[in-house]
Protein backbone atom coordinates (compact mmCIF):
# COMPACT_ATOMS: atom_id res chain seq x y z
CA UNK A 1 0.00 0.00 0.00
CA UNK A 2 2.82 2.34 0.91
CA UNK A 3 4.53 1.61 -2.40
CA UNK A 4 1.30 2.27 -4.22
CA UNK A 5 0.83 5.56 -2.42
CA UNK A 6 4.32 6.66 -3.26
CA UNK A 7 3.83 5.74 -6.89
CA UNK A 8 0.60 7.67 -6.98
CA UNK A 9 2.25 10.64 -5.35
CA UNK A 10 5.04 10.61 -7.89
CA UNK A 11 2.45 10.29 -10.61
CA UNK A 12 0.52 13.23 -9.29
CA UNK A 13 3.59 15.39 -9.13
CA UNK A 14 4.56 14.40 -12.63
CA UNK A 15 1.09 15.29 -13.83
CA UNK A 16 1.34 18.59 -12.04
CA UNK A 17 4.53 19.41 -13.85
CA UNK A 18 3.04 18.34 -17.15
CA UNK A 19 -0.35 19.97 -17.28
CA UNK A 20 -1.83 20.62 -13.88
CA UNK A 21 -1.09 24.31 -13.68
CA UNK A 22 -3.45 25.74 -16.22
CA UNK A 23 -6.30 26.57 -13.93
CA UNK A 24 -6.02 29.84 -12.06
CA UNK A 25 -5.07 29.73 -8.39
CA UNK A 26 -7.06 32.39 -6.58
CA UNK A 27 -6.16 33.96 -3.24
CA UNK A 28 -8.71 35.71 -1.08
CA UNK A 29 -6.86 37.94 1.35
CA UNK A 30 -7.92 39.99 4.34
CA UNK A 31 -5.24 41.94 6.14
CA UNK A 32 -4.82 40.36 9.53
CA UNK A 33 -6.49 37.12 8.59
CA UNK A 34 -4.12 36.10 5.83
CA UNK A 35 -5.27 34.41 2.64
CA UNK A 36 -7.32 31.41 1.65
CA UNK A 37 -6.62 29.73 -1.64
CA UNK A 38 -8.88 28.14 -4.17
CA UNK A 39 -8.06 26.45 -7.43
CA UNK A 40 -10.57 27.75 -9.97
CA UNK A 41 -12.02 25.40 -12.51
CA UNK A 42 -11.26 27.79 -15.36
CA UNK A 43 -8.10 28.95 -17.06
CA UNK A 44 -7.04 32.54 -17.51
CA UNK A 45 -8.04 32.34 -21.15
CA UNK A 46 -11.53 31.17 -20.22
CA UNK A 47 -11.81 33.98 -17.69
CA UNK A 48 -11.00 36.51 -20.38
CA UNK A 49 -13.78 35.07 -22.53
CA UNK A 50 -16.35 35.09 -19.76
CA UNK A 51 -15.42 38.51 -18.44
CA UNK A 52 -14.97 40.04 -21.88
CA UNK A 53 -11.43 41.17 -21.16
CA UNK A 54 -8.50 41.15 -23.51
CA UNK A 55 -5.47 39.21 -22.30
CA UNK A 56 -5.93 40.29 -18.69
CA UNK A 57 -6.41 36.93 -17.03
CA UNK A 58 -4.62 35.08 -19.82
CA UNK A 59 -1.47 36.76 -18.60
CA UNK A 60 -1.63 34.90 -15.29
CA UNK A 61 1.38 32.60 -15.30
CA UNK A 62 1.67 29.17 -13.82
CA UNK A 63 3.26 30.49 -10.64
CA UNK A 64 1.12 33.63 -10.39
CA UNK A 65 -1.80 34.19 -8.07
CA UNK A 66 -5.06 36.00 -8.77
CA UNK A 67 -5.58 37.98 -5.58
CA UNK A 68 -8.84 39.36 -4.23
CA UNK A 69 -7.92 41.66 -1.36
CA UNK A 70 -10.55 43.09 0.97
CA UNK A 71 -10.28 46.84 1.28
CA UNK A 72 -12.94 48.27 3.53
CA UNK A 73 -16.15 46.64 2.40
CA UNK A 74 -14.97 46.14 -1.15
CA UNK A 75 -12.77 43.65 -2.96
CA UNK A 76 -9.81 44.70 -5.06
CA UNK A 77 -8.28 42.35 -7.58
CA UNK A 78 -4.70 42.12 -8.77
CA UNK A 79 -2.21 39.57 -10.00
CA UNK A 80 0.63 38.60 -7.70
CA UNK A 81 3.65 37.54 -9.72
CA UNK A 82 6.41 37.51 -7.10
CA UNK A 83 5.29 35.96 -3.85
CA UNK A 84 4.58 32.34 -3.06
CA UNK A 85 1.36 31.29 -1.37
CA UNK A 86 3.03 31.25 2.01
CA UNK A 87 4.70 34.63 1.49
CA UNK A 88 1.45 36.21 0.38
CA UNK A 89 -0.37 34.77 3.36
CA UNK A 90 2.25 36.18 5.71
CA UNK A 91 2.15 39.56 3.98
CA UNK A 92 -1.53 39.77 4.90
CA UNK A 93 -0.82 38.82 8.50
CA UNK A 94 -1.49 35.10 8.14
CA UNK A 95 0.60 32.31 9.55
CA UNK A 96 2.17 31.16 6.31
CA UNK A 97 0.49 27.79 6.49
CA UNK A 98 -1.72 27.49 3.43
CA UNK A 99 -4.10 24.97 2.02
CA UNK A 100 -6.08 25.02 -1.19
CA UNK A 101 -9.77 24.89 -0.47
CA UNK A 102 -12.42 23.69 -2.84
CA UNK A 103 -14.34 26.83 -2.15
CA UNK A 104 -13.98 30.34 -0.93
CA UNK A 105 -14.93 30.22 2.71
CA UNK A 106 -15.37 33.96 2.99
CA UNK A 107 -18.85 34.18 1.50
CA UNK A 108 -21.89 32.14 2.46
CA UNK A 109 -25.57 33.16 2.20
CA UNK A 110 -27.81 32.16 5.07
CA UNK A 111 -30.30 29.35 4.88
CA UNK A 112 -33.89 30.35 5.38
CA UNK A 113 -36.95 31.66 3.60
CA UNK A 114 -35.96 33.64 0.53
CA UNK A 115 -37.93 35.57 -2.02
CA UNK A 116 -36.83 36.15 -5.56
CA UNK A 117 -38.06 38.70 -8.04
CA UNK A 118 -37.16 40.66 -11.14
CA UNK A 119 -36.98 44.33 -11.93
CA UNK A 120 -37.96 46.21 -15.06
CA UNK A 121 -36.17 44.98 -18.17
CA UNK A 122 -34.09 47.44 -20.11
CA UNK A 123 -33.92 46.63 -23.81
CA UNK A 124 -32.38 48.19 -26.87
CA UNK A 125 -34.38 48.33 -30.12
CA UNK A 126 -34.24 44.88 -31.55
CA UNK A 127 -35.20 43.15 -34.76
CA UNK A 128 -35.35 39.81 -32.99
CA UNK A 129 -38.14 38.83 -30.66
CA UNK A 130 -36.49 38.12 -27.36
CA UNK A 131 -39.65 38.80 -25.45
CA UNK A 132 -40.26 35.14 -24.88
CA UNK A 133 -37.06 34.79 -22.93
CA UNK A 134 -37.51 38.04 -21.09
CA UNK A 135 -40.97 37.03 -20.00
CA UNK A 136 -39.63 33.77 -18.70
CA UNK A 137 -36.99 35.55 -16.70
CA UNK A 138 -39.66 37.92 -15.44
CA UNK A 139 -41.59 34.91 -14.28
CA UNK A 140 -39.36 34.71 -11.28
CA UNK A 141 -41.70 35.70 -8.52
CA UNK A 142 -41.23 32.91 -6.10
CA UNK A 143 -40.55 32.36 -2.47
CA UNK A 144 -39.50 29.38 -0.51
CA UNK A 145 -37.07 27.80 1.85
CA UNK A 146 -33.53 27.55 0.59
CA UNK A 147 -30.64 25.63 1.96
CA UNK A 148 -27.59 26.87 0.15
CA UNK A 149 -24.81 24.49 -0.69
CA UNK A 150 -21.97 24.85 1.73
CA UNK A 151 -19.69 26.06 0.40
CA UNK A 152 -21.70 28.33 -1.85
CA UNK A 153 -21.25 27.79 -5.57
CA UNK A 154 -22.53 30.13 -8.25
CA UNK A 155 -23.94 27.15 -10.14
CA UNK A 156 -26.63 27.15 -7.49
CA UNK A 157 -28.07 30.33 -9.02
CA UNK A 158 -28.41 28.86 -12.48
CA UNK A 159 -27.24 25.38 -13.16
CA UNK A 160 -26.88 24.63 -16.83
CA UNK A 161 -24.33 22.54 -18.65
CA UNK A 162 -23.67 25.39 -21.06
CA UNK A 163 -23.14 27.98 -18.37
CA UNK A 164 -19.54 28.83 -17.52
CA UNK A 165 -19.18 30.52 -14.16
CA UNK A 166 -16.28 32.69 -13.11
CA UNK A 167 -15.69 34.13 -9.67
CA UNK A 168 -15.02 37.80 -10.30
CA UNK A 169 -14.58 38.56 -6.61
CA UNK A 170 -15.32 36.40 -3.58
CA UNK A 171 -18.89 37.70 -3.56
CA UNK A 172 -19.34 38.37 -7.29
CA UNK A 173 -19.93 35.81 -10.01
CA UNK A 174 -20.38 35.97 -13.74
CA UNK A 175 -21.85 33.19 -15.78
CA UNK A 176 -21.83 33.13 -19.55
CA UNK A 177 -23.76 30.89 -21.89
CA UNK A 178 -22.33 31.38 -25.36
CA UNK A 179 -22.97 27.92 -26.74
CA UNK A 180 -19.36 27.44 -27.64
CA UNK A 181 -19.20 30.49 -29.85
CA UNK A 182 -17.00 32.51 -27.53
CA UNK A 183 -16.92 36.23 -28.09
CA UNK A 184 -18.29 35.77 -31.62
CA UNK A 185 -21.35 33.84 -30.53
CA UNK A 186 -24.55 35.20 -32.16
CA UNK A 187 -26.36 34.87 -28.86
CA UNK A 188 -25.11 35.14 -25.34
CA UNK A 189 -26.76 34.98 -21.98
CA UNK A 190 -24.77 36.57 -19.17
CA UNK A 191 -25.76 36.33 -15.54
CA UNK A 192 -23.97 38.67 -13.15
CA UNK A 193 -24.68 37.97 -9.51
CA UNK A 194 -23.43 39.56 -6.31
CA UNK A 195 -23.85 38.31 -2.79
CA UNK A 196 -24.38 41.73 -1.28
CA UNK A 197 -24.51 40.24 2.16
CA UNK A 198 -25.58 36.93 3.64
CA UNK A 199 -29.24 37.88 3.25
CA UNK A 200 -29.27 39.54 -0.16
CA UNK A 201 -28.21 38.39 -3.61
CA UNK A 202 -28.57 40.80 -6.51
CA UNK A 203 -27.84 40.34 -10.16
CA UNK A 204 -28.93 40.80 -13.72
CA UNK A 205 -29.48 38.72 -16.78
CA UNK A 206 -28.07 40.19 -19.94
CA UNK A 207 -29.18 38.74 -23.25
CA UNK A 208 -27.28 39.79 -26.33
CA UNK A 209 -28.32 38.73 -29.80
CA UNK A 210 -26.12 39.61 -32.71
CA UNK A 211 -27.98 39.94 -36.00
CA UNK A 212 -26.05 40.35 -39.26
CA UNK A 213 -26.45 43.83 -40.75
CA UNK A 214 -28.25 45.08 -37.64
CA UNK A 215 -27.25 46.51 -34.32
CA UNK A 216 -27.02 43.85 -31.64
CA UNK A 217 -29.95 43.46 -29.29
CA UNK A 218 -29.29 43.97 -25.60
CA UNK A 219 -31.78 43.12 -22.91
CA UNK A 220 -31.03 43.42 -19.22
CA UNK A 221 -33.29 42.02 -16.55
CA UNK A 222 -32.35 42.73 -12.94
CA UNK A 223 -33.00 39.98 -10.40
CA UNK A 224 -32.70 39.83 -6.67
CA UNK A 225 -33.11 37.29 -3.92
CA UNK A 226 -33.67 38.37 -0.35
CA UNK A 227 -33.73 36.34 2.81
CA UNK A 228 -36.99 37.06 4.55
CA UNK A 229 -36.37 34.86 7.58
CA UNK A 230 -33.13 33.13 8.34
CA UNK A 231 -33.10 29.69 9.83
CA UNK A 232 -31.82 29.22 13.32
CA UNK A 233 -28.46 27.66 13.73
CA UNK A 234 -28.79 24.13 12.49
CA UNK A 235 -26.64 21.19 13.25
CA UNK A 236 -25.91 18.62 10.63
CA UNK A 237 -23.51 17.83 7.89
CA UNK A 238 -22.87 21.01 5.95
CA UNK A 239 -20.56 19.29 3.52
CA UNK A 240 -23.37 16.98 2.55
CA UNK A 241 -24.94 19.92 0.78
CA UNK A 242 -22.33 19.80 -1.93
CA UNK A 243 -23.85 16.78 -3.56
CA UNK A 244 -24.49 17.35 -7.24
CA UNK A 245 -28.21 16.86 -6.80
CA UNK A 246 -28.29 19.66 -4.29
CA UNK A 247 -26.73 22.24 -6.53
CA UNK A 248 -30.06 23.12 -7.94
CA UNK A 249 -32.79 22.24 -5.51
CA UNK A 250 -35.52 23.56 -7.71
CA UNK A 251 -39.08 22.72 -7.01
CA UNK A 252 -40.72 21.72 -10.21
CA UNK A 253 -43.98 23.41 -10.89
CA UNK A 254 -44.67 21.10 -13.75
CA UNK A 255 -44.98 23.91 -16.23
CA UNK A 256 -42.73 23.48 -19.25
CA UNK A 257 -43.09 27.17 -19.96
CA UNK A 258 -40.94 27.83 -16.94
CA UNK A 259 -37.89 26.69 -18.84
CA UNK A 260 -35.66 29.69 -19.22
CA UNK A 261 -34.13 28.58 -22.47
CA UNK A 262 -36.21 25.80 -23.91
CA UNK A 263 -34.75 23.27 -26.25
CA UNK A 264 -36.01 23.36 -29.77
CA UNK A 265 -35.27 20.80 -32.37
CA UNK A 266 -33.06 21.79 -35.24
CA UNK A 267 -35.98 21.33 -37.49
CA UNK A 268 -37.62 24.36 -36.01
CA UNK A 269 -36.83 27.97 -36.53
CA UNK A 270 -34.86 28.71 -33.39
CA UNK A 271 -31.47 27.04 -33.32
CA UNK A 272 -29.87 29.74 -31.25
CA UNK A 273 -30.50 28.13 -27.94
CA UNK A 274 -29.12 24.61 -27.85
CA UNK A 275 -29.84 24.26 -24.18
CA UNK A 276 -30.86 21.01 -22.70
CA UNK A 277 -32.73 21.03 -19.48
CA UNK A 278 -31.25 18.76 -16.87
CA UNK A 279 -34.62 17.71 -15.66
CA UNK A 280 -35.47 20.83 -13.78
CA UNK A 281 -38.24 22.58 -15.61
CA UNK A 282 -37.37 25.85 -13.95
CA UNK A 283 -33.62 26.30 -13.80
CA UNK A 284 -33.70 29.83 -12.64
CA UNK A 285 -34.68 29.98 -9.04
CA UNK A 286 -33.05 27.65 -6.57
CA UNK A 287 -36.03 27.32 -4.34
CA UNK A 288 -36.88 24.13 -2.62
CA UNK A 289 -39.45 23.51 -0.04
CA UNK A 290 -38.16 21.69 2.99
CA UNK A 291 -41.39 19.82 3.07
CA UNK A 292 -40.73 18.15 -0.23
Amino acid sequence: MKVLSTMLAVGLLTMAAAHGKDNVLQATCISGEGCTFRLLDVTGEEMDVVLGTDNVYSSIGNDDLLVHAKVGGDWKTYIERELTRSELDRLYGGDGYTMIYLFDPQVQPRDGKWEGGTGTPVASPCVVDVGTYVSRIQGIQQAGAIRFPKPFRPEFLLDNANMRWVTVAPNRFRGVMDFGGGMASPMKLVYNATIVNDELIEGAFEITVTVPAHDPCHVTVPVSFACMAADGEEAGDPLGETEEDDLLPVRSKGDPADDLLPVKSKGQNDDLLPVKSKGNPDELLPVKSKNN
Partner: protein
Amino acid sequence: MKRIFNRTPQWLAALLLGGSMAISCAGNANKAEVPSSFDGAALLAAAGHPDQLIAVGDIAEWAGIPAERIARHVEDYDKDPALKKMAFHWEALGTISFTTLSGEAVSVPRHHSVGLANIEAMDMETFNQRHGTSVGIKAAIDALVNDESVDADVAIAQANYLAETAKSLSLQPLEGVGDAAVWEMPTQVLHVYADGVAFTVTTNFGDDPEVNKKKAIAFAQLVFDNQ
Protein backbone atom coordinates in the same frame (compact mmCIF):
# COMPACT_ATOMS: atom_id res chain seq x y z
CA MET B 1 3.98 44.12 -8.45
CA LYS B 2 5.03 47.34 -6.86
CA ARG B 3 4.91 47.25 -3.09
CA ILE B 4 5.72 50.06 -0.74
CA PHE B 5 6.04 49.78 3.02
CA ASN B 6 5.14 53.13 4.44
CA ARG B 7 5.85 54.50 7.82
CA THR B 8 2.93 54.66 10.21
CA PRO B 9 2.32 57.22 12.94
CA GLN B 10 4.97 57.56 15.62
CA TRP B 11 2.55 56.79 18.41
CA LEU B 12 1.93 53.39 16.90
CA ALA B 13 5.63 52.70 16.59
CA ALA B 14 6.22 53.76 20.17
CA LEU B 15 3.37 51.57 21.35
CA LEU B 16 4.69 48.56 19.50
CA LEU B 17 8.22 49.19 20.72
CA GLY B 18 7.02 49.47 24.29
CA GLY B 19 5.06 46.27 23.93
CA SER B 20 8.05 44.47 22.51
CA MET B 21 10.27 45.64 25.36
CA ALA B 22 7.72 44.54 27.91
CA ILE B 23 7.61 41.11 26.36
CA SER B 24 11.36 40.73 26.16
CA CYS B 25 11.72 41.71 29.80
CA ALA B 26 9.06 39.29 30.96
CA GLY B 27 11.32 36.25 31.13
CA ASN B 28 13.76 34.05 29.25
CA ALA B 29 12.84 34.59 25.63
CA ASN B 30 14.24 31.21 24.59
CA LYS B 31 12.46 29.03 27.11
CA ALA B 32 8.88 27.94 27.63
CA GLU B 33 8.70 25.68 30.63
CA VAL B 34 5.73 23.43 31.25
CA PRO B 35 4.25 24.31 34.65
CA SER B 36 2.91 21.53 36.84
CA SER B 37 -0.55 23.03 36.43
CA PHE B 38 -0.54 22.43 32.68
CA ASP B 39 -3.11 19.83 31.65
CA GLY B 40 -2.66 18.53 28.13
CA ALA B 41 -6.05 16.82 28.20
CA ALA B 42 -7.75 20.12 28.97
CA LEU B 43 -6.00 21.78 26.06
CA LEU B 44 -7.04 18.92 23.83
CA ALA B 45 -10.64 19.16 25.02
CA ALA B 46 -10.69 22.80 24.04
CA ALA B 47 -9.29 22.12 20.57
CA GLY B 48 -12.75 22.27 19.04
CA HIS B 49 -13.21 25.76 20.39
CA PRO B 50 -9.83 27.41 19.95
CA ASP B 51 -11.41 30.84 20.27
CA GLN B 52 -12.09 30.06 23.92
CA LEU B 53 -8.54 29.04 24.73
CA ILE B 54 -7.08 32.47 25.28
CA ALA B 55 -8.90 35.70 25.98
CA VAL B 56 -8.24 38.87 24.03
CA GLY B 57 -7.32 40.55 27.30
CA ASP B 58 -4.52 38.03 27.85
CA ILE B 59 -3.20 38.70 24.37
CA ALA B 60 -3.39 42.45 24.95
CA GLU B 61 -1.35 42.13 28.11
CA TRP B 62 1.08 39.72 26.50
CA ALA B 63 1.63 41.80 23.39
CA GLY B 64 1.36 45.22 24.97
CA ILE B 65 -1.41 46.18 22.58
CA PRO B 66 -4.72 47.74 23.68
CA ALA B 67 -7.40 45.05 23.62
CA GLU B 68 -9.71 47.14 21.47
CA ARG B 69 -7.15 47.04 18.67
CA ILE B 70 -6.93 43.26 18.68
CA ALA B 71 -9.20 41.14 16.50
CA ARG B 72 -9.65 37.41 16.65
CA HIS B 73 -9.90 35.19 13.62
CA VAL B 74 -10.84 31.52 13.60
CA GLU B 75 -10.37 29.33 10.55
CA ASP B 76 -12.96 26.67 11.08
CA TYR B 77 -13.33 25.17 7.65
CA ASP B 78 -12.79 21.56 8.60
CA LYS B 79 -14.58 19.14 10.87
CA ASP B 80 -11.29 17.91 12.27
CA PRO B 81 -10.57 19.97 15.41
CA ALA B 82 -6.86 19.49 14.76
CA LEU B 83 -7.24 21.52 11.58
CA LYS B 84 -8.92 24.48 13.21
CA LYS B 85 -6.79 27.59 13.51
CA MET B 86 -7.18 30.58 15.74
CA ALA B 87 -5.21 33.79 15.53
CA PHE B 88 -5.20 37.24 17.05
CA HIS B 89 -4.14 40.14 14.88
CA TRP B 90 -3.69 43.87 15.09
CA GLU B 91 -2.57 46.71 12.86
CA ALA B 92 1.17 47.06 12.59
CA LEU B 93 3.78 49.16 10.87
CA GLY B 94 3.65 49.53 7.12
CA THR B 95 1.13 48.99 4.37
CA ILE B 96 0.50 46.55 1.58
CA SER B 97 0.33 48.41 -1.70
CA PHE B 98 -0.68 47.06 -5.07
CA THR B 99 -2.17 48.10 -8.38
CA THR B 100 -5.48 46.50 -9.29
CA LEU B 101 -6.33 45.05 -12.66
CA SER B 102 -8.20 48.24 -13.41
CA GLY B 103 -5.11 50.34 -12.66
CA GLU B 104 -6.16 51.62 -9.26
CA ALA B 105 -3.39 52.09 -6.67
CA VAL B 106 -4.49 50.60 -3.36
CA SER B 107 -2.95 50.41 0.09
CA VAL B 108 -4.11 48.45 3.10
CA PRO B 109 -2.49 48.36 6.53
CA ARG B 110 -0.30 45.44 7.47
CA HIS B 111 -1.09 43.35 10.50
CA HIS B 112 0.84 41.29 12.98
CA SER B 113 -0.63 38.07 14.30
CA VAL B 114 -0.12 35.23 16.70
CA GLY B 115 -2.11 32.04 16.72
CA LEU B 116 -2.61 28.46 17.67
CA ALA B 117 -3.29 25.49 15.42
CA ASN B 118 -3.01 21.72 15.05
CA ILE B 119 -3.92 20.83 18.63
CA GLU B 120 -3.71 17.08 18.63
CA ALA B 121 -3.07 14.19 20.99
CA MET B 122 0.08 12.24 20.26
CA ASP B 123 3.10 10.70 21.93
CA MET B 124 6.53 12.22 21.78
CA GLU B 125 7.84 9.68 19.29
CA THR B 126 5.09 10.56 16.86
CA PHE B 127 5.69 14.26 17.46
CA ASN B 128 9.40 13.96 16.74
CA GLN B 129 8.75 11.95 13.62
CA ARG B 130 6.01 14.21 12.28
CA HIS B 131 7.52 17.57 13.07
CA GLY B 132 11.20 16.82 13.54
CA THR B 133 11.64 15.21 10.14
CA SER B 134 10.24 15.61 6.64
CA VAL B 135 8.01 12.59 7.30
CA GLY B 136 5.16 14.98 8.05
CA ILE B 137 5.16 16.43 4.55
CA LYS B 138 5.45 13.02 2.96
CA ALA B 139 2.52 11.86 5.07
CA ALA B 140 0.52 14.88 3.97
CA ILE B 141 1.19 14.04 0.32
CA ASP B 142 0.21 10.42 0.94
CA ALA B 143 -2.98 11.57 2.64
CA LEU B 144 -3.83 13.71 -0.37
CA VAL B 145 -3.26 10.81 -2.69
CA ASN B 146 -5.42 8.48 -0.66
CA ASP B 147 -8.25 10.92 -0.01
CA GLU B 148 -10.78 10.26 -2.75
CA SER B 149 -12.90 13.19 -1.61
CA VAL B 150 -10.23 15.66 -2.68
CA ASP B 151 -10.61 17.04 -6.18
CA ALA B 152 -7.85 15.67 -8.41
CA ASP B 153 -6.68 19.08 -9.63
CA VAL B 154 -6.56 20.39 -6.09
CA ALA B 155 -4.65 17.31 -4.94
CA ILE B 156 -2.12 17.80 -7.72
CA ALA B 157 -1.64 21.48 -6.96
CA GLN B 158 -1.38 20.89 -3.22
CA ALA B 159 0.97 17.93 -3.56
CA ASN B 160 3.16 19.94 -5.90
CA TYR B 161 3.22 22.79 -3.42
CA LEU B 162 4.12 20.49 -0.54
CA ALA B 163 6.90 18.93 -2.58
CA GLU B 164 8.31 22.39 -3.30
CA THR B 165 8.02 23.28 0.37
CA ALA B 166 9.94 20.15 1.33
CA LYS B 167 12.91 21.28 -0.73
CA SER B 168 13.50 24.32 1.45
CA LEU B 169 12.34 22.80 4.73
CA SER B 170 14.51 23.46 7.78
CA LEU B 171 13.63 21.94 11.16
CA GLN B 172 15.41 23.16 14.29
CA PRO B 173 14.83 21.31 17.59
CA LEU B 174 14.57 23.72 20.52
CA GLU B 175 15.70 22.84 24.03
CA GLY B 176 13.71 24.14 26.96
CA VAL B 177 10.47 24.68 25.12
CA GLY B 178 7.75 22.33 26.33
CA ASP B 179 8.74 18.69 26.53
CA ALA B 180 9.90 18.98 22.91
CA ALA B 181 9.71 21.65 20.25
CA VAL B 182 10.70 22.24 16.65
CA TRP B 183 11.06 25.57 14.86
CA GLU B 184 10.05 25.14 11.21
CA MET B 185 11.42 27.30 8.44
CA PRO B 186 10.66 28.90 6.05
CA THR B 187 7.07 28.79 7.28
CA GLN B 188 8.18 30.24 10.66
CA VAL B 189 5.98 28.17 12.93
CA LEU B 190 6.76 26.52 16.26
CA HIS B 191 5.60 22.96 16.91
CA VAL B 192 5.38 22.19 20.62
CA TYR B 193 4.81 18.96 22.54
CA ALA B 194 3.82 18.76 26.20
CA ASP B 195 1.87 16.33 28.34
CA GLY B 196 0.68 14.15 25.49
CA VAL B 197 -0.51 17.01 23.30
CA ALA B 198 1.08 18.69 20.32
CA PHE B 199 0.19 22.16 19.09
CA THR B 200 1.56 24.68 16.65
CA VAL B 201 2.20 28.32 17.43
CA THR B 202 2.03 30.64 14.45
CA THR B 203 3.59 34.07 14.62
CA ASN B 204 3.74 36.92 12.19
CA PHE B 205 5.61 39.88 13.60
CA GLY B 206 7.20 40.83 10.32
CA ASP B 207 9.87 39.23 8.23
CA ASP B 208 12.60 38.57 10.83
CA PRO B 209 12.54 34.83 11.69
CA GLU B 210 14.42 35.35 14.96
CA VAL B 211 11.83 37.83 16.17
CA ASN B 212 9.03 35.48 15.19
CA LYS B 213 10.74 32.56 16.93
CA LYS B 214 11.08 34.45 20.20
CA LYS B 215 7.47 35.55 20.03
CA ALA B 216 6.38 32.00 19.33
CA ILE B 217 8.26 30.67 22.33
CA ALA B 218 6.77 33.37 24.53
CA PHE B 219 3.29 32.54 23.24
CA ALA B 220 3.85 28.85 23.99
CA GLN B 221 4.58 29.90 27.55
CA LEU B 222 1.32 31.84 27.59
CA VAL B 223 -0.55 28.72 26.45
CA PHE B 224 1.07 26.67 29.21
CA ASP B 225 0.31 29.26 31.85
CA ASN B 226 -3.32 29.66 30.76
CA GLN B 227 -4.22 26.04 31.40
